[in-house]
Every structure is written in structure tokens, then in C-alpha cells.
């Protein structure tokens, strides 16, 4: 299977976007070669701003440019964008509803060897909690490109979470991405596996194995974490009566929490959450970290069996 890092897809998408929309500007904080905004810089140097190692200024300048009619894509590592510059995002971007698209790369444990200091595991939680913020976690390169274009035409702030490591390309060009719409990738009746980002591929593999073992699992790609596609989630809860969420993020505040909020209010059914279990990561190879912190096909399957057992009736 072809593999592409979502950050690479982002860089390429920016160039296409830049050709179509002259009001698009791109900002980075000395990480353009890692975040891949360098691709845009090479083609449109006059519309690229490097602010140096100054993330608060990065987001603040992006806000000022957006207030002057630009569509500003600002990139750095997710941990710095949403942590160090959180209050700049809150007050200068979310509160003001400005057209800043925060495309943050190197999210999650799969940053790998750089270790816990660089592994964003609460970014979805904090971005999701901000009023006016849209939160997108693309599952592959194709979805990343479509999300970048959708974010550019969406009026208001958007957080796009991207990864460092190459991930399988799951979708073809005909894949339809819409902000706020979850996509059922595989139908099933015994349990629903809801995933985002790199965990979508793991959920698909888990569903295949479960099928061989006689369990019919529905797989849903919840790539928009905010606004949540309540209809698709409620339908899954009512029809399969057991849910599993899987995310490369702390189990507090991310996809698992967001799904729990929806079902508790609308269609209470048992839920098991696969994610980082409220702990910081460490250095290691991406696949070693996913294994150690419980983010594998095996973990999703175990959660599926556990939640099916909890089903009523």
C-alpha cells in the first residue's frame, strides 16, 4: 500500500491552493522544511512569511493578516501551536473569528524519537474546547488535501491536525470530504469503530480481522472533531449498540470524549476508548510507541470484544 505522510500532502495541497487563491498566505516558525510549507515558499516566496522561532507571534501575525483580507495558513508543530500559543489562538483567532487555518504537524506519539516534549496529545482537547474553532484530523494524504481546500473556503478559524510519519493512502480521488461529515468506510452491525487520523487504518484492519472471527464491525472515519457529525454517530449507536473510539491522543478530551458527549445525550450505549491513557509518551520508533501505549489493531479488537460483552439485550 502506498504511504504518504499527511504533512507531505499538506505541502503539496498548499501549492495547488496558492495557484487558485491569490489571497492565501502561509506562515511558519522556522520549521518550514518539517511542516512542508517550504513547498509553498518555493513557488510563492512573496506570500510566505517566516517569523523565526516565535510561535505566539506566528499566530498573532496570522490574525493580523487575516484581519486584512488574507486567508492565513500558519504552521508549526502541534505541541507548540496549541500549547505555547494557545492564548493567542484563543483571543486573536477564535474570539475574533478570523480566517486563520492552523495546520499543525507532528501531532501525536508518532513524532517518535523526539520524545514526549514534542508529542502533542492534548491538542484536540484544547482546540475542540474553543468556541468558533473547527477541528479536522485527516486520515490520509487524500483527505488532507481535501481538508486543506475545505478549510480555505470555510469562513473562520480551522485547526488541521497532521502527522510526521508516512501512513497508508486509504482514499481515492473520488473520496468526498465535507467539514462536519463523518464517513462510514465499512458497514457492520455488531459494533462500530469510530476513529480519526492514523487510527482509521488500524480500525479498518481490526474490522477485517473481526470479520474473519465472525464479528461484523462498522468503521467510521470521524475526521471532523468539531462540529461533530451527530447524526452518523447516533445512527451507529442505535444500530450497532456498542461503540469503540480510537485516536492517537489522550483519552481525555479527544475523539472518545466527543463521541461520549454525543451518545450520552442522545443514544446511551456502551463505549470503549482506545487512546493514550492519560500519560506522556517517550522516545522510540513510531510503531514501538503505538504498541507500548496501546494504539494497535489488537487494542481496538480487544476493546470491541469488551464493549460487545457490555451490550444490553
Amino acid at each position, binding site marked *: 500500500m502506498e504511504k504518504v505522510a499527511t504533512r507531505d500532502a499538506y505541502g503539496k495541497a498548499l501549492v495547488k491552493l496558492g495557484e487558485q487563491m491569490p489571497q492565501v498566505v502561509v506562515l511558519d516558525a522556522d520549521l518550514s522544511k518539517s511542516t512542508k510549507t517550504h513547498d509553498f515558499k518555493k513557488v510563492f516566496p512573496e506570500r510566505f512569511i517566516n517569523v523565526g522561532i516565535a510561535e505566539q507571534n506566528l499566530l498573532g501575525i496570522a490574525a493580523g*493578516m487575516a*484581519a486584512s*483580507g488574507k486567508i492565513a495558513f500558519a504552521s508549526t508543530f502541534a505541541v507548540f501551536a496549541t500549547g505555547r500559543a494557545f492564548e*493567542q489562538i484563543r*483571543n*486573536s483567532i477564535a474570539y475574533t473569528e478570523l480566517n486563520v487555518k492552523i495546520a499543525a504537524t507532528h501531532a501525536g506519539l508518532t513524532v517518535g524519537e523526539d520524545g514526549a516534549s514534542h508529542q502533542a496529545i492534548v491538542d484536540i482537547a484544547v482546540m475542540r474546547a474553543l468556541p468558533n474553532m473547527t477541528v479536522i484530523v485527516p486520515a490520509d494524504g487524500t483527505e488532507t488535501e481535501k481538508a486543506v481546500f475545505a478549510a480555505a473556503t470555510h469562513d473562520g478559524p480551522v485547526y488541521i491536525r497532521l502527522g510526521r510519519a508516512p501512513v497508508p493512502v486509504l482514499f481515492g480521488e473520488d473520496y468526498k470530504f465535507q467539514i462536519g461529515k463523518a464517513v462510514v468506510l465499512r458497514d457492520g452491525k455488531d459494533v462500530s469503530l469510530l476513529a480519526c487520523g492514523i487510527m482509521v487504518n488500524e480500525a479498518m484492519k481490526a474490522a477485517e480481522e473481526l470479520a474473519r472471527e465472525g464479528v461484523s464491525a462498522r468503521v467510521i472515519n470521524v475526521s471532523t472533531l468539531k462540529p461533530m457529525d451527530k447524526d452518523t454517530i447516533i445512527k451507529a449507536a442505535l444500530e450497532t449498540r456498542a461503540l469503540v473510539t480510537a485516536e492517537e491522543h489522550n483519552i481525555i478530551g479527544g475523539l472518545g470524549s466527543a463521541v461520549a458527549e454525543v451518545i450520552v445525550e442522545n443514544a446511551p450505549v456502551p463505549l470503549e476508548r482506545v487512546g493514550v491513557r492519560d500519560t506522556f509518551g517517550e522516545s522510540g520508533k513510531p510503531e514501538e510507541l503505538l504498541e507500548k501505549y496501546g494504539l494497535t489493531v489488537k487494542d481496538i479488537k480487544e476493546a470491541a470484544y469488551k464493549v460487545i460483552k457490555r451490550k444490553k439485550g
Partner: protein
Amino acid sequence: MEQISNEKKLQEIARQIRRNIITMLAEAGSGHPGGSLSAVEILTALYFQEMRVDPANPQWPERDRFVLGKGHAAPVLYATLAEKGFFPREELLTLRKINSRLQGHPDMRKVPGVDMSTGSLGQGFSASVGMALAGKMDKKDYRVYLLLGDGEIQEGQVWEGAMAAAHYKLDNLTAFLDHNGLQIDGPVQEVMSPEPVVDKFKAFGWHVEQIDGHSFTQITRALEIAKSIKDKPTMIIAETVKGKGVSFMENEAGWHGTAPKKDQAAQALEELA
């Protein structure tokens, strides 16, 4: 002769703005008089002499921009905008009240004429840099003005912004430092001295002017110089008096964030009559 009458006109507007600040703060029962009163001449000169704005068309793309870095001085901005005709003067009495457009700190989505929402110190600096960068990118001739507090520049983001403005040669950006010497906890010098501010901004690549921030002649001259400086942003360090114009408020840190009571407001208005 024309200049003298113009200065008289500006002084008259400044006096009215001060009266509005006192009245609205007394009505609100909370807010920030000290740092509002110290910046009256600066905002008056900007809005009534310098800036290209159209109250009937607040979002005019060609307009000059103003960013109130020290967002807590919202009363001086609101009073100036109302005086300029961006919204009715009577609305000033709704300051800080429920359902009002006039929030405790400026909200660009609510108030016509407010170019950037501020209140968290240091953030306005970066926004003004972004506006100036966008203007350069689009080859527009609008200018961007920023007002900073001298306590505000203790924020690290200010220096990130200062570095970037010089790096990108933003000669369309002019900042004022409202150098009134006081912050909430006391004299800026004692709390955390940012001095020497002239040397610091020079070292960060800015052209620096030092003026009496209550003199229209000096403000005007500094603004003219700022427009003539090429490839550098200009920092106008304005020596001001916190609480200027109200005897019992002048140079008193306690009036940073305390509204006058009715009798105190009456006395202040008498002094500003």
C-alpha cells in the same frame, strides 16, 4: 495661524474625550481610567488629524488601521470613536453592561471602528505587524498604528513582534509607547523595569522618537517623521502622565483599574469643564 486654531480644536476634542471617559466609567462602575486618560492626546491626534478613516464605512479596505495593544484602555478608544462618529455618543453609557457592544476590552466583531480585538497584552503587537505585512504584500498605502502600554512591553510577545517588524522593514507601522510609568502593582521601574526603552527598540531595529505625549505639536511632528522614515518601523515613546487631566488621578497607580464614584466623577468633570 491655521496651526494654532487646529491645535485649539484638537485640545477641545481631547477635553470632550476626557469628559466622556470619566462619565462612562462612573456609569459602568468599573474600568480603567488611568491609562485611558494618559493616551487621550495620542488618539485624538490620530483620529482627528492623522488617520484616513471613514466612520460611515468602518471596514473600508484602504483605511489606516489602529490597534489598541493596551486593550484595557478601551474607554479612550470608545470615546474617540464615538466623537468621530463611528457610533452614537449615548452608547458610551452602556460600557461594560450586559448586551452592550462596548465590552470591557475592545471587540472588533461588535464595535464599528475597532480594527482588532485586544485585551490580552502583547497580542495587539503581532496583529499590527500582520496588518502592515498584508499592506506591503498588496502594495497598499494604508498605515498601521499601534498603542502600547509601558507595562505591556514586559510581555515576551512584544519583542517577538518588534523583531519581526524590523526584519520585514515595516515602515508602514508606527507604534506609540504610552510611557506613563505605572502598572497595576506600582511603578513600572519597581515591578519589572523594561528600561532603557529607547535603546531597546533601537537595538531591535526601530527608528525611535521621544516626545511629550500630551503635546499635539510634538505628536504631529513625530508622526510626520515616522512617515518619512524608510525601511524601518517607528516607535514614538510618549512621555505621559497616568490619569492626566484629573488632579486626584494623576500619577496614582491606584487609578489603573478603579472607576470613579459619582462624587469623584463630578469633581473630575468640574476640572475638565
